[in-house]
């Protein structure tokens, strides 16, 4: 556990999501984990000045690198960007010294309402033209690059003109934003829409990925749902190995939001990810690991 950096600074290795259930564990002890990711909105409080959760986070923050992960930017919505919210995020990033901030390629509401759900976009030129200036605006307000996550999806649109990975790649090229590649989401969407998840990985430019997510899904028989309430499943670990071979030892976060295990259970998942990072993410080991996986042994 925690083979990588474990003091404030830039995250590396495998981190875990800080959820309220674990606040006391982290505030009173110093569990060994490389870094933490917070859900930004949980620390904004009533007016962006934070409440009890932020007080605890600021104590915890002393001992771990932290990154911010948002769920309400609603980048793809046709509603205007919420500048008050963006400024609250900026303040939170400043007081927590978070290393970066991320959100999703989706929309969460329209007409002034927030559905608190990560809703899919059609992959069209129109949508690209809608998104690019909004990403530029976010980056201008925040003063740094946005890290954008691919979502799990359960429906597609007949008028999409490109694949999700082509759409994401174009966004990174046009705006300079980076990607949070959620390996579980790639797998869930691949099963739900019958594409090859490796094609997704291979379609993403190598230098654009800032972070990985891993999580557990639920199998509903006809489709998979990104529930974040299970350990990471074997097919996702397998795809993660592929991602490490392609992108290197990118900081990886274990996301677990529902039916939370005791902290030790979560840390075990992070430890597994770090073992794989060492085995598959090291440039010198990549060739050997890849060969070993396909049954060849270097002489």
């Amino acid at each position: 556990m925690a083979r990588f950096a474990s003091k404030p600074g830039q995250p590396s290795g495998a981190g875990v999501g800080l959820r309220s259930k674990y606040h006391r564990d982290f505030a009173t002890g110093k569990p060994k984990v490389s870094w933490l990711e917070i859900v930004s909105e949980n620390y904004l409080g009533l007016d962006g000045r934070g409440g009890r959760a932020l007080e605890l986070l600021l104590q915890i923050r002393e001992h771990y690198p932290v990154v911010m992960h948002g769920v309400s930017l609603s980048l793809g919505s046709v509603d205007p960007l919420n500048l008050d919210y963006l400024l609250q995020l900026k303040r939170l990033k400043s007081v927590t010294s978070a290393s970066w901030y991320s959100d999703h390629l989706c929309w969460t509401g329209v007409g002034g309402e927030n559905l608190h759900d990560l809703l899919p976009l059609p992959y069209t030129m129109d949508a690209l033209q809608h998104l690019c200036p909004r990403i530029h605006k976010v980056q201008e307000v925040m003063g740094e690059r946005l890290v954008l996550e691919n979502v799990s999806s359960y429906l597609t649109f007949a008028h999409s003109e490109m694949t999700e990975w082509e759409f994401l790649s174009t966004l990174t090229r046009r705006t300079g934003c980076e990607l949070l590649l959620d390996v579980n989401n790639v797998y869930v969407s691949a099963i739900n829409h019958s594409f090859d998840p490796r094609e997704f990985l291979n379609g993403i430019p190598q230098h654009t990925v800032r972070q990985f997510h891993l999580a557990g899904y639920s199998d509903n028989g006809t489709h998979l749902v990104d529930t974040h309430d299970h350990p990471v499943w074997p097919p996702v670990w397998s795809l993660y190995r592929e991602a490490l071979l392609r992108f290197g030892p990118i900081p990886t976060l274990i996301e677990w939001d529902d039916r939370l295990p005791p902290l030790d259970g979560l840390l075990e998942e992070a430890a597994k990810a770090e073992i794989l990072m060492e085995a598959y993410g090291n440039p010198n080991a990549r060739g050997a690991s890849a060969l070993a996986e396909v049954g060849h042994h270097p002489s």
Partner: protein
Amino acid sequence: METPTLEALQHWLKWAITHPEGAKTAVAAAQFEPKPSCASSVVNAPPLDRFERIDIYGKAFFLRLRDYLLSVFPKSKQLFDRVLQSDAFDMLMAEYIVGVPSTTPNIDTFGLAFPAFCRDNASTKLPNEHSWLFDILELERCVLFAHLSACGESLIKTKLPLLDAETLGSARFTTDPTLNLIGSSANLADLWRSPMEEALPSGGTTFYCGVWRDLSGEVRVQTLSIAAYTCLTALLSGCAVAQISISTQTTQTQIAQWFREWVENGIIRDILLAH
């Protein structure tokens, strides 16, 4: 098929996802359906048809907000169920989710308007003797408010040793910004702690309680005597200690004892000196 604009697509999807009876029923009824209809823009891809795919989002939407409300109002749910022996609380949650859409980026604040919604929409349906159920909702709203609010540090402890009795008597005080005081026909603090065990109110008595974040950061729910409640209400309204003593007919000794207690537990955070 005409390609919908992003705006038309989003408005239509929002309508379909948030329809309580599901997308297929919503489209069949076509009541209030935004035009143009965008149903055919969603791909039918076996084993699920387009409506089943939309309903994955719909179910998640209702479940997420319902789970959130239950996490904020767990004791209210238990007490409504215990007292009314019906699904009234579940119905109120469902009506609230549809009737008061969230407009905030922060889901944590979605429940703040729930008690008022319940009072406005269910008070005529509840027998009068059960109206205290709205007070337990209000108490849980105050707990949520206390968690979400920023608290300054306590400044009074460093100032107190420098003040004489006369100065203290004329001073006004700043209370913890999360402090809320509630009066009810139910002993709310006890019911909040043990919603399934405590005796239900039998009427005739008024109970008082305070909710605030103490200096350790924990949220406290505490029963108050009527005299303490009256004094705190006066403090909150900006009265000086000397005035409080006169207006509430409480002895200076009693007020001094409460004062020390309230400084220690974080209710009184700062002092404003009269000039």
